[in-house]
């Protein structure tokens, strides 16, 4: 009996250790990322990193300005959200409130296919199909623009936005909707005055997670947005080539000597990226938990 208890305790500790791996992994990730990133600031002041307007890592007097890359990520992300949020929420409403349940059961897995397609395949498709279309329709010198990146990222963010919004909308209790319909409102009035507002917290969480996905995406933006590290104008920057934080890391890491300033600068960029998505995740999870519908 005693033996059995010892064994049980031992197993519980082992299981706890496995659970703790996630915490340890996140902790180590912070340490290694920030430590390598901080080494840049031994030779290059933090203030310059944050305020320099140029990213010229290979110049004779290198400049590691974060701004062009941060704003590049910003423009592409805002563009993708403007495109995917209305489309995603509309689709979610259609699936949960309007479509015949049988059709909805087909539509859902079809939209989920978008989540399964690897980002490099999106990038490839964007490069071969969308880039020439953008160039021709807008008669631009190149089709590799922030807009192209925004559209591709928007498509990629759609399944996240649709599935989480759909969850939120369909979890609004039927009694509330029926109350509204009984008062003589049309179905549409009920949807936009009652159902959607009631699901707003879930929808906001969906949007936050969509933003997180768009900021962190690497291969697709790298293949379709042209990668010029210039501070983009807004909205004119949409039609120019931009470079995001993610693309910079993936493009340049292969060519830099380990331990150089440039190497550490890429880790500093990665740290900024990590902190950004970390904050977005915290907010998204907070909203999701705080306002979960309960009746």
């Amino acid at each position: 009996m005693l033996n059995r208890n010892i064994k049980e305790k031992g197993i519980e500790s082992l299981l706890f250790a496995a659970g703790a791996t996630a915490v340890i992994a996140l902790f180590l990730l912070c340490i290694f990322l920030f430590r390598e990133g901080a080494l840049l600031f031994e030779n290059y002041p933090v203030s310059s990193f944050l305020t320099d307007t140029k990213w010229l890592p290979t110049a004779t007097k290198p400049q590691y300005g974060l701004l062009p890359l941060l704003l590049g990520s910003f423009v592409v992300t805002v563009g993708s959200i403007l495109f995917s949020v209305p489309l995603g929420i509309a689709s979610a409403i259609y699936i949960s409130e309007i479509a015949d349940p049988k059709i909805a059961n087909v539509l859902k897995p079809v939209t989920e296919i978008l989540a399964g397609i690897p980002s490099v395949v999106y990038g490839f498709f964007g490069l071969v199909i969308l880039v020439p279309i953008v160039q021709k329709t807008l008669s631009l010198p190149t089709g590799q623009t922030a807009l192209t990146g925004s559209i591709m990222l928007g498509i990629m963010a759609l399944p996240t936005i649709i599935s989480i919004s759909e969850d939120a909308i369909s979890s609004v209790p039927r009694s509330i909707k029926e109350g509204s319909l009984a008062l003589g409102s049309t179905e549409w009035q009920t949807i936009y005055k009652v159902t959607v507002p009631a699901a707003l917290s879930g929808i906001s969480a969906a949007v936050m997670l969509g933003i997180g996905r768009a900021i962190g995406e690497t291969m697709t933006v790298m293949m379709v947005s042209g990668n010029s590290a210039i501070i983009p104008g807004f909205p004119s920057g949409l039609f120019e080539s931009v470079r995001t934080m993610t693309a910079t890391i993936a493009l340049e890491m292969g060519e830099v000597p380990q331990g150089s300033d440039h190497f550490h600068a890429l880790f500093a960029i990665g740290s900024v990226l990590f902190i950004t998505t970390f904050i977005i995740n915290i907010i998204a999870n907070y909203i999701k938990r705080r306002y979960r519908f309960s009746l």
Partner: protein
Amino acid sequence: MFSNAKLNEKIAFALLKVAMAMVIAFVVIILYDIISNGYGILSIEFITSAPRKGMTQGGIFPAIVGTTYLIMGSMIVALPLGILAAIYLTEYAQPGKTTWMIEMAINNLAGTPSVVFGLFGLAIFVKYFGFGDSILSASLTLALLILPIIIRASQEALLTVPKEYREASLALGVTKWETIRKVVLPAAIPGVVTGAILGVGRVAGETAPILLTGAAYFYPRLPSTIFSQFMALPYHLYVLATAGTNISQTRPIQYGTALILLLLVLFVNVIAVTIRSHYRKKLKR
């Protein structure tokens, strides 16, 4: 007034329908483009031979092998770890600070960009542990990346096992762990498998993390040890589509690679979704 509301409703519903149709159109167009253009080049030779003549001819065999190794390597690490963590969280953990921290860490790992995992893998596995640019470094990096997926799916599976199963077993005097091992876990297997399969799909498609931890531009030999560099399908597609002087010449190979990758990932997802919906239905009965 009344007819006005009806008219508004008609317009609104039409717009929602258009939005839905656009989303479906994206799926169809992307799949159609890759399948119709990639179909022609697929052959036994394409998937069993190495690239030749500066990658302008030949097949993609080394990339398929590399991706297979990555899947195996990351699964060996992430699957047991993820399942054990899920058992802890659903069966043992008490609500409190520790559990909250674990949950928070999982959520944040799930939302961390893959390129950041790449940087982490580079700093810790390639540099700090000295594994170099290798299958080992890349597999470990990918294992961390899919850990949240496997934990979440396994948790969901364990939660769907009815309480009565546990109580019946415990009432017979079986210990908690024996109950979990012999009763709860077998009942949760389908859900756990679903999580594992989704993880496979993710590993097969990820590019940014392996780009930083050991994927090779061109490595026609098959990797001989876990410390070798390797080729992988997604990176191969990226290289062919963006680098070199023969981008338009190798377009068919690019489409072929994209199609193989797409088929692999979709096949895996279809299996996962089927298993999941089958067991969800069963559970509701």
